[in-house]
């Protein structure tokens, strides 16, 4: 419901125009009769019944103005050279970001080393001993896929923390090598140390991994692992007596992994989106009617910067008429494929999936004055399996997949008996109408649109009782106030049509209006020759000129 005191003010202002006329006239009459030497006191005056004509409204509405009044349209666009218009409703259907697909949790691995009894004896006798070991460290990849193979990772950030704790206080020197981890210069990471690097038997080392590269090995069942190779030399500490068994334990953690890109194969990742919707507001207040568009298109615009292909299927697409609650499903069996970004430095892969009459029942889907369209999608990566080498998948730190929806409704079709109803709150005072006999409203339209429009106003009192109508015949008796322009065989208007509608409001009508608290505006739209199902086109140069004037029939006692 909308408040519309505007009309009240408009009428009041119009009727007030009579009063200055009366004053001027009385002055003139008095003057002239005085000069004519009459005796005004003894005279009677005939009633003063001027007819004042006042223009109230003059607007030239273009197609954008008109559609804005029947719809909070997002956008109206021209879709061909002739100026055919289409309504578009755009929105983001869903987005998939890197975190939704692939995560590298922190890794922390512990390991230890032991010496034999012979090595202990050698150490106690002052001889050296050597120790070699290799520890595999699996990358813990969080991904909804059974098969993931990481070929390489370029790290943007991350920390490597190494801790060695000597259990036996012997002198230890050597190095830990990670052959799958290379620094920014391309050298494998080697952590070397000497006995003096230990403080109280503890050695801590850390490395900032920014710019480092990881080359995990993929040897099922150990997925995507890197090895840590230890080559140690032990020498005797005379203060300590070596014994067989564990002589150190250590831990290696990789934290805060942040990567620029990851190459490999990520398998068939399955994603199910939440249900989303797009509301088509045209004829939001329509309560009945048949609305047919010759063409309608739903474009699913995808932008994929993942380096992997995705197949999108439709879990559910349906429209619901918000007035009737009728749900209409869209019959669309096929899924659509989204290519991956070709290379790490190329542009995202953009594709458009079109839902139209060729692959769906979209005509039926949008016919019954649709209001809200619901979408629920599912997506699977690498629908065709692992790419053929040397092709691989990749993801980058900014990789994402966006699916935007664009509902395109070319205004090319016909509408039959679209009934639109709206209710306005109003309060009209006629205190200033004492000297007004009646009002005659005159609506003059020059319609360049291919549609007829009929209207009826129903006036309700404060208890919602019907007390009057603008035109006789009841709420369902609508009066034509806009006659369609004439169209050619392509449905394009070639000449505008003028129509004058008048309505006289007498004293009784004015009294009814004074009690009016609500006005129900009922209108019916029919495109040109819609009964013959003739299609019309709405072009961007259509205009509707509206002029509203009022004649005020005064009755003033002099």
């Amino acid at each position, binding site marked *: 419901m909308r*408040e*519309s*005191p*505007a*009309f009240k*003010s*408009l009428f009041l*202002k119009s009727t007030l125009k009579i009063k200055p*006329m009366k004053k*001027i*006239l009385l002055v*003139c*009459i008095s003057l*002239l*009769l005085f*000069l*004519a*030497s*009459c005796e005004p006191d*003894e*005279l*009677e*005056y*005939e009633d*003063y019944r*001027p*007819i*004042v*004509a*006042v*223009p*109230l*409204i*003059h*607007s030239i*509405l273009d197609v954008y*103005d008109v559609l804005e*009044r029947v719809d909070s349209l997002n956008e109206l666009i021209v879709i061909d050279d002739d100026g055919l218009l289409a309504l578009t409703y755009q929105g983001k259907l869903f987005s998939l970001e890197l975190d939704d697909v692939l995560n590298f949790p922190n890794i922390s691995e512990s390991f230890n080393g032991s010496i034999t009894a012979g090595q202990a004896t050698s150490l106690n006798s002052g001889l050296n001993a050597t120790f070699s070991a290799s520890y595999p460290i699996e990358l813990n990849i969080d991904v909804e896929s059974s098969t993931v193979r990481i070929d390489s990772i370029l790290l943007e950030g991350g920390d490597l923390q190494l801790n060695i704790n000597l259990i036996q206080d012997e002198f230890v020197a050597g190095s830990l090598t990670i052959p799958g981890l290379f620094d920014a210069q391309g050298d494998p990471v080697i952590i070397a140390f000497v006995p003096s690097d230990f403080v109280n038997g503890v050695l801590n080392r850390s490395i900032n991994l920014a710019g480092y590269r990881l080359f995990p090995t993929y040897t099922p069942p150990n997925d995507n692992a890197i090895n840590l190779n230890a080559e140690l030399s032990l020498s005797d500490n005379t203060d300590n007596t070596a014994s067989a068994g564990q002589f150190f334990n250590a831990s290696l953690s990789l934290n805060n992994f942040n990567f620029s890109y990851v190459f490999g194969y990520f398998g068939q990742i399955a994603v199910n989106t939440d249900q989303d919707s797009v509301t088509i507001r045209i004829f939001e207040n329509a309560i009945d009617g048949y609305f047919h568009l010759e063409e309608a298109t739903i474009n699913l615009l995808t932008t994929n910067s993942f380096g992997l292909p995705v197949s999108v299927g439709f879990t559910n697409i349906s429209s619901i008429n918000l007035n009737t609650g009728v749900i209409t499903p869209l019959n669309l069996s096929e899924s659509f494929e989204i290519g991956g970004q070709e290379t790490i430095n190329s542009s995202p892969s953009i594709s458009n999936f079109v839902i139209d009459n060729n692959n769906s029942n979209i005509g039926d889907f949008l016919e019954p004055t649709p209001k809200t369209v619901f979408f629920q999608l599912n997506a699977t990566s690498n629908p065709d399996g692992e790419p053929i080498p040397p092709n691989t998948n990749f993801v980058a730190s900014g990789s994402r997949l966006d699916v935007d929806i664009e509902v395109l409704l070319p205004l090319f079709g016909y509408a039959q008996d679209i009934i639109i109803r709206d209710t306005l709150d109003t309060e009209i005072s006629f205190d200033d109408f004492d000297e007004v006999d009646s009002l005659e409203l*005159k609506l*003059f339209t020059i319609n360049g649109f291919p549609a007829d429009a009929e209207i009826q106003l129903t006036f309700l009192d404060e208890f919602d009782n019907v007390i009057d109508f603008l035109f006789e015949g009841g709420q369902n008796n609508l009066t034509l106030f806009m006659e369609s322009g004439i169209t050619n065989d392509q449905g394009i208007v070639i000449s505008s049509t003028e129509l*004058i509608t008048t309505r006289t409001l007498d004293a009784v009508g004015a009294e009814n209006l004074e009690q009016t608290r609500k006005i129900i505006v009922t209108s019916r739209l029919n495109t040109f020759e819609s009964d013959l199902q003739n299609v019309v086109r709405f072009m961007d140069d259509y205009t509707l000129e*509206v*002029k*509203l*004037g*009022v*004649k*005020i029939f*005064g009755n003033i006692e002099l």
Partner: protein
Amino acid sequence: MRVTVLFIALFLLSSAWTFGQLNTIYLSNNEAASQWRGNPAFQGKEKVFLYILPAVSSFDISAGHTGFTYNDAVQGKTVNFSSVIDGLKKKNHLLFENRISMFALGLKAGKTQFRIGMDVATDMRFSYPGELIELLWKGNGHPDVIGRNLDMSGLGLNFISYYDYFIGLSRTMMDDKLAVGANLHYMQGLETIYTKTSEFYFYTDPNDYALTASGAFDLKTSLYSDTTDIPDDRYFPFSNSDNTGMSFDFGATYKFSDRLDLQASALNIGSINWTTQAKSFVLDGVSITYDGLELDDIYDQSDSVETSLENVADSIADLFELDERAGSFKTPSNARYILSADYALGAKNHVQFTYAHMRSFNQGFNTVVGMFRRDFSPLFSVQGGLQFFNFRHLLVPIAFQFNPGPVQLAVGTGNVVSAFGYKNMKFLSGHFSLSLRFGKQRSPRVDD
């Protein structure tokens, strides 16, 4: 102080709403005032004449309304505006004119007549277009009005009051067959309202009621807006040298035969330059069309409807706001051009036919008059006839003249109908003249 009051009273008296038609009495009798109100070629039959206020003077007052009569407006006891409107012309005028001789002295020597004198004069014309009254009565939406381009041009008030100091002479020649004369007037303007330009048009479109108004206006005034600013001697003769002007009268008579005299005169040709409190209220040509508010103003913002209407009204008001400008200006004197033929039917009877064109603040009026005069004796004569003012309005002038001794008394009216049928009259006038004359020529005995 008493003298001041007397002059102000005299001024106000002369400013009373009066006026109009051609006073034909001066063309067919030998009153002294006819020498500056009829034809400067006229000569008196006396050696000396004298007017001096208040004892002896010449006084003319006339009024007229070209629009409607009382009976047009009132039928029974009811004011019938429809009948009023039917009786209105495109332009309608309320005309007033008043002349009072304050002093005049004439001397005749041989063939030459000298004269000098002073009048106080007031002219007024209020004009209103018939279509304005029709618009106000019927409204712009009435079927008779809507779709017509209403011409309301000419709406305006004109008023002038001035002292007229004059000197003149006439002389006969060609054995008295031809007489020529001229007067020179020096005018001291007192107050004026002068509507120089008044053009207004109003049109209501029958389809959408769009209103189009256009117009131009130039109103000039020389008035004191605050009476306390008026100098005490403001209305005294010779009281100031502001608002001065000059005008001329020219005239000739020719005795074509013993019976036929032809007369021609041009009177009051000149202007006054107004400088005291001189202002102009000017509206340069403007045109505006209002065809309603934009739908957005009504639909989107309820508050803006009232604002928009007020803005429209303000815009229109601003467009038609008069621009006040100070500065001197000139008003034309109300000239008259008269052609007349006097034919003697015998020694006692004369008929006279006159055509006159009269200017009233740039508005022209024409009149034709037929008069008959009978001299019953040297002491008494009567004039009467018919006048068609503006070729349309019938008037019945009548006058009587008495010449007892050194006194000449003339009384008359330009429309005797006004005395007994005021409800049908549009014009009234009164003429009174009392002068002293000395050295009259002996008139021949009048035998018919």
